[in-house]
């Protein structure tokens, strides 16, 4: 049985985080695997991926508390934070923990089983298969925005559509991915 919050849409869930701490836990449950997969495919280390994931969600929580939550699609906002963490990793050479320190969070200890499960995300082609199964307009927008980290304006210019259209395609594509990912569990 899911928690009632797990049945909310992303935007409603983000709104609920203002008053209900459980809503942020629900957001974590929803995006833990996609964010872990995003990192582990890039850094090839389960430990580091978990570290970056923790910092990403801590950063997201800190942003929400500063009223700096998503202006548009919540998933794009969350992956935007993830991208920033990845860029910072490459720039600094280590994973920062500023957001976790701000929130007084401790490092998370992982056992071998958890590390294996995270590693498995990197070896699992399911996410890429799911992305490739998206309708072409959504797939292009999701890949350009989420995977290639391009600005909405640049994507819109390339695709010869409005920026609003790109945002809509990214949003719908991510929503479709989330539903399909959950369906594969």
């Amino acid at each position, binding site marked *: *049985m*899911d*928690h*009632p*919050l*797990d049945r909310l849409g992303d935007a409603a869930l983000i709104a609920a*985080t*203002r*008053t*209900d*701490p*459980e*809503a*942020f*836990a629900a957001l*974590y*449950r*929803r995006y*833990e*695997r996609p964010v*872990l997969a995003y990192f582990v495919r890039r850094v090839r280390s389960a430990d580091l991926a*978990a570290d970056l*994931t*923790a910092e990403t*969600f*801590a950063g997201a*929580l800190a942003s929400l*508390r500063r009223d700096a939550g998503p202006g548009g699609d919540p998933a794009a906002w969350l992956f935007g934070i993830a991208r920033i963490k990845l860029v910072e990793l490459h720039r600094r050479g280590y994973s920062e923990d500023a957001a976790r320190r701000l*929130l*007084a*969070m*401790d490092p*998370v*200890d*992982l056992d071998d089983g*958890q590390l294996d*499960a*995270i590693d498995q995300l990197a070896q699992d082609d399911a996410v890429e298969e799911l992305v490739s199964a998206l309708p072409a307009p959504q797939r292009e927008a999701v890949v350009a925005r989420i995977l290639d980290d391009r600005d909405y304006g640049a994507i819109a210019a390339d695709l010869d559509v409005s920026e609003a259209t790109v945002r809509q395609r990214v949003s719908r594509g991510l929503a479709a991915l989330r539903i399909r990912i*959950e369906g594969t*569990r």
Partner: protein
Amino acid sequence: MTTLIPALEAQLLFAADRTTPGAAPSPGASRRRARWGGLPLLAVVAASLTVSAGAYASRGLWLPQLGADSYGHAQATASPPPGAESSVLGVLRREQSDADRDVAVRAVLRDAGPSLGKIRTNAVRRLGTLPDGRVAVLVPARVPKGFDPTLPNMTQDQLLLGIYDPATHGTGGFLTSDALGMQAGDLMLAVSRRPSAEQSALGHAFLEREVRAGRLEKSAEPPYYHVLSVEQSERYARATGLRPTDPDVYVGVVPDGVAEVRVDGHTTVPVVGNFFAAPSTRGSRHPVVWLDAHGRTVPFASTIGAWK
């Protein structure tokens, strides 16, 4: 949804709780969690009740997260506690407050798996805070029939005593049937009857051999489960992630009319909101004694010493 890193989920929950406007503060971060249904736990001395002013009587059924996907979920129910419980426990008759829904309480409820059946969420009460910060929570539940096959006549209305440790975010708890069924190997159990005229007539001293013979089953009918006392063992502490305690603590829920509890012949601790916490009585040859507001002994059926 089951997460790959439940400890991170728990940490984020607590961080979100700490930073939610109006939420009660909760120090530390999560590492390990334990499930209901096993042994007791506990810590240190003397209790203090912390209740804030807000009340929820008119807000409908409270729907906190019960359990987790990894081990299942209990259900929330709007049914109130039976009269056998609420008539003797004033803490159940007062309105639910903000404190009764705080992060410590919700942490305990996240251990409520499907085996517990239905949780009376609007009747959940934060009983008190131990000096080291641990929190005791009373969770009224309606457990499924046949919940404990060793106690076929056990009432389905159970009171669960949960403990949350904010330093480790360990949680644990047990319910009356754990004690009555002797599933808990290190607990000290006091089985009570409501102080009443009929009690003296029905008074029955359960001895350990009777418990082992299954006769304690009788006491599983209301109103006999209105006190439950637990001592923590190091084994349980290790199993749950709770801090080991030395000395152990002796905690319990007692019916209305009990103002103090004398635990070792001379040490007396106050009862606040039907809850007390006292130094361990392990090894003591003195029985636990309930006292009313005038210092008079309140009789109860029996105190059964700790066993291994």
